[in-house]
């Protein structure tokens, strides 16, 4: 008997070794995509927040005598301007650093706003079903039928452009995917037995939604968030490029590309540098989202 008990105890010991936190850390350490994404996103965020500390020059000061200085790796460069200057003689690195503020701010802000709208509609529609669900689905169809970039242009044009307007307009136009994902998953989870179990121990609708269902949606919401953030960052760049987004002299990556478009063929760095920054940020956000999903997914918590 004693031997049996010991053996059983040993088996149990194999299963329990790490606390949840230790397990998360262990998984994060072995996930390269997550580390790369997190590193880039965090560094960009820090640079954006502390832009005045990082920027070597004032991004708005023009010096027409130093127009179009090429970056340090090209001929005729100047170590004072690491990434050269633009057509008005403004330091390109400084503008890039200040531009990160707009890109990150608009991306994060609009994605969060869209997330709040979409998740709320999706949760309610999926949980209540019936007419509420039909109404929400109709709303979704309408939204999907709208050309969102065109609409954003029109809206920003009428309201007058500022960073806040951009965040609100882009946020209000980017909730569909949150809603689709949340609604489908909520419907599935609502039918599972742990929701019935929660009801039978006395939980009310609110407790079921927030304690049982929402935590199980987080993984997917985070993934959609990362995708949407990337989309919104690009949309902001597009709007700025088209002239209805951030207005000069404010620095924005999209605006930088727009301002450089006439010189694209003989001064390619003016387009390539903000383009590369945009690419890197979007890639990093996507990798980070995938990484968070992989690390926190309960299916692989073994």
């Amino acid at each position, binding site marked *: *008997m004693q*031997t*049996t008990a010991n*053996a*059983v*105890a*040993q*088996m*149990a010991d*194999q*299963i*329990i070794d790490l*606390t*949840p936190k230790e397990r998360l850390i262990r998984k994060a350490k072995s996930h390269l995509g997550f580390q790369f994404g997190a590193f880039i996103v965090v560094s960009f965020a820090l640079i954006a927040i502390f832009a005045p500390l990082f920027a070597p020059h004032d991004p708005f000061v023009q010096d027409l005598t130093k127009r179009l200085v090429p970056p340090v790796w090209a001929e005729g460069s100047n170590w004072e301007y690491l990434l050269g200057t633009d057509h008005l003689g403004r330091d390109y690195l400084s503008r890039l650093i200040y531009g990160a503020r707009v890109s990150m701010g608009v991306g994060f802000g609009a994605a969060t706003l869209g997330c709040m709208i979409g998740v709320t509609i999706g949760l309610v529609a999926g949980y209540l079903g019936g007419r509420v669900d039909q109404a929400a689905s109709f709303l979704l169809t309408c939204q999907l039928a709208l050309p969102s970039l065109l609409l954003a242009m029109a809206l920003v044009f009428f309201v007058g452009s500022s960073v806040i307007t951009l965040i609100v307009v882009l946020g209000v136009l980017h909730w569909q995917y949150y809603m689709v994902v949340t609604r489908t998953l909520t419907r599935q989870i609502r039918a*599972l*037995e*742990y929701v*019935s*179990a*929660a*009801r*039978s*121990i*006395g*939980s*009310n609708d609110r*407790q079921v939604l927030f*304690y*049982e269902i929402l*935590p*199980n949606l*987080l993984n997917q919401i985070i993934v959609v968030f990362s995708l949407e953030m990337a989309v919104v960052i690009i949309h902001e760049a597009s709007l700025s490029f088209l002239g209805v987004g951030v207005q000069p002299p404010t620095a924005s990556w999209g605006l930088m590309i727009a301002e450089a478009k006439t010189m694209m063929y003989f001064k390619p760095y003016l387009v390539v540098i903000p383009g590369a920054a945009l690419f890197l940020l979007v890639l990093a956000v996507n990798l980070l989202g995938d990484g968070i999903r992989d690390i926190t997914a*309960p*299916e692989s*918590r*073994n």
Partner: protein
Amino acid sequence: MTALLEVQDMSVTLKLAEGEMTAVQDVSFTVDRGETLGIVGESGSGKSVSSMAIMGLLPRGTRTEATTLRLGDVDLLSASEEEMARLRGNKIAMIFQEPMTSLNPVYTIGRQMTELMQLHKSVSGATARARAVDLLEKVGITAAESRLSQYPHQLSGGLRQRVMIAMMLMNDPELIIADEPTTALDVTIQAQILNLLKDLQKELNVALIIISHDMGVVARVSDKIAVMYAGQVVETGPVENVLRAPKHPYTQGLLESIPVPGQIEPGGALGSIPGLVPSLKTRFKCCRFANRCLRVHEACQQGPVALQNAGRGQAYRCVLTPETLRDGASSLAAPEAGDGSYGTGINMGASPVLQAIDAGCTFQVKQGMFSAAKPLRAVDEISLDLRQGEVVAVVGESGCGKSTLARMLLGLQEPTAGQILLGGQDIAELSDMERSRKLQSIFQDPYSSLNPRRTIGEIIRRPLHLHGVGSLVEQRAKVDAIMERVGLPRSFYHNYPNQLSGGQRQRVAIARALILNPEIVVCDEPTSALDVSVQAQILNLLLELRAEMGLTYLLITHDMAVVEHIATRVVVMYLGRVVEVADTHRLFSNPRHPYTQALLKSVLTPEPGAGVPSVDLGTAYPNPINPPSGCAFHPRCEFASDICKVKAPVLESLSPSHQSACHMLEKEMV
């Protein structure tokens, strides 16, 4: 004479992300034409992997090794992928568990059947169709010709499994492997399918391998049996010998843990095997059963154990000799006979603690996009009383409305007619809090009844938190106490549900249900998702807790053996209505309704060679959206007369504790 299929020392190693896993080790068996081999084992015992290895259907990267693996004169180990593909349709046929998913929904039955034949044999379409019709008739499908143009979704589960069997016979296979062929089917259909398989096998003289977790199924149809545990065959031999005189402690334990109708002392504890089926990822150094075996010996820990011959074709994998096995400690936690007092002391005159009064539930179902919604009577005016201390079992096949009834009784589904009273008060008027203090539930599937995002501790503590019972420290102390009571180690507190096995999860569900000290617990199929040896542990636990806490259970189940073991009263449901209510003892000794009789008859006890009882209920379970007129059971009833077709019978008392709803009762009595 050499056997048709010979498997000698087969090992299968699967490649997983975490490394290699030996799912099957040193498995040997032979099957000849006209012979049936039953492979029985719990989940994770490697029984399905063995059959997939024979079929060559294992994923790439899997390593199959064997000294011999031969079908007829073909060496399956060295056969190329092309040769295997030819073999699979032609010589080996496999019948899968899930008839819903093993037929392709976008092709007609006819196309799927003839395609297989035309692929492997150069025959004309007409010949193939003729053969398909022929075989469909053989498997007992009426109007076979017209079935060919039907799609799988137009057939019921039982019919689909018949089609699957007919399809497998198209090319005259020599070997049929049936992997859990009846697990997804209702009990009354199960007997029909097993009989069909058995008859066809005799007629066509093929070799048959039946894989199942159900000792009853395997015992009834096999000639030979192999008991698998943790990737090894632990005992093998003629079915008579193995089941009548099991040698290996695991086989003994498995047989003891099955509640056998007729031999049950209600309320007694079932014999159970302690512990869990080991994960195959474990690196075994010694006997794989040693950690659960009550006769564990020093010799058990000294390296792997070989199969010993016990004579008459029987072999077992244990260090003990047949002589030492016979004496000494029992091989399992001793079953305790009930003292006969089980179920007594219930005051039937007392007012019911939970009561359904003409409760009904009708759903509006739309069949097509434009058709009007039709009513579906899931539960049709059921009255039911539950008194303090009772264990009432509601039995019936899938679709009879028993789960809807459970949801109504739990207050999760509002009845569309009648009412549910909890302690004399309408349950709809009670708040969630009041209701849940008295009434709790345990669900069927422990894999979906626990929120995967919460730790075990959080899940069990949640009811206390919701009801604001005590401080955090007191709550944690309570959780610790109840975890210990239901047999969960305290260290599981911070684990997530997916790190636990099915049985452990069900213990968590029980702990959650009991932590508020409820009066009534509704158990919806509490053991049907569990392995046999674990099922006994859970049933014993439920019985102990009932005695300790004075609980009243409402048990929803389809398993008659479980019912006889723990219920004091039984309610039999058919198509949303109660057809018979009686004390457990009375119902099992003297079932009166033809449906109850059929249900009882289809229970398969592990009795070797007894054959499968023929339960001829004719057609399939009716669709609840178009219920038959009059008595809903009449199309399947052998006693049905004209009145049954027009008038629905009502429950009539046969004795104070026995009621049945059937027009033909008097006539039968004569």
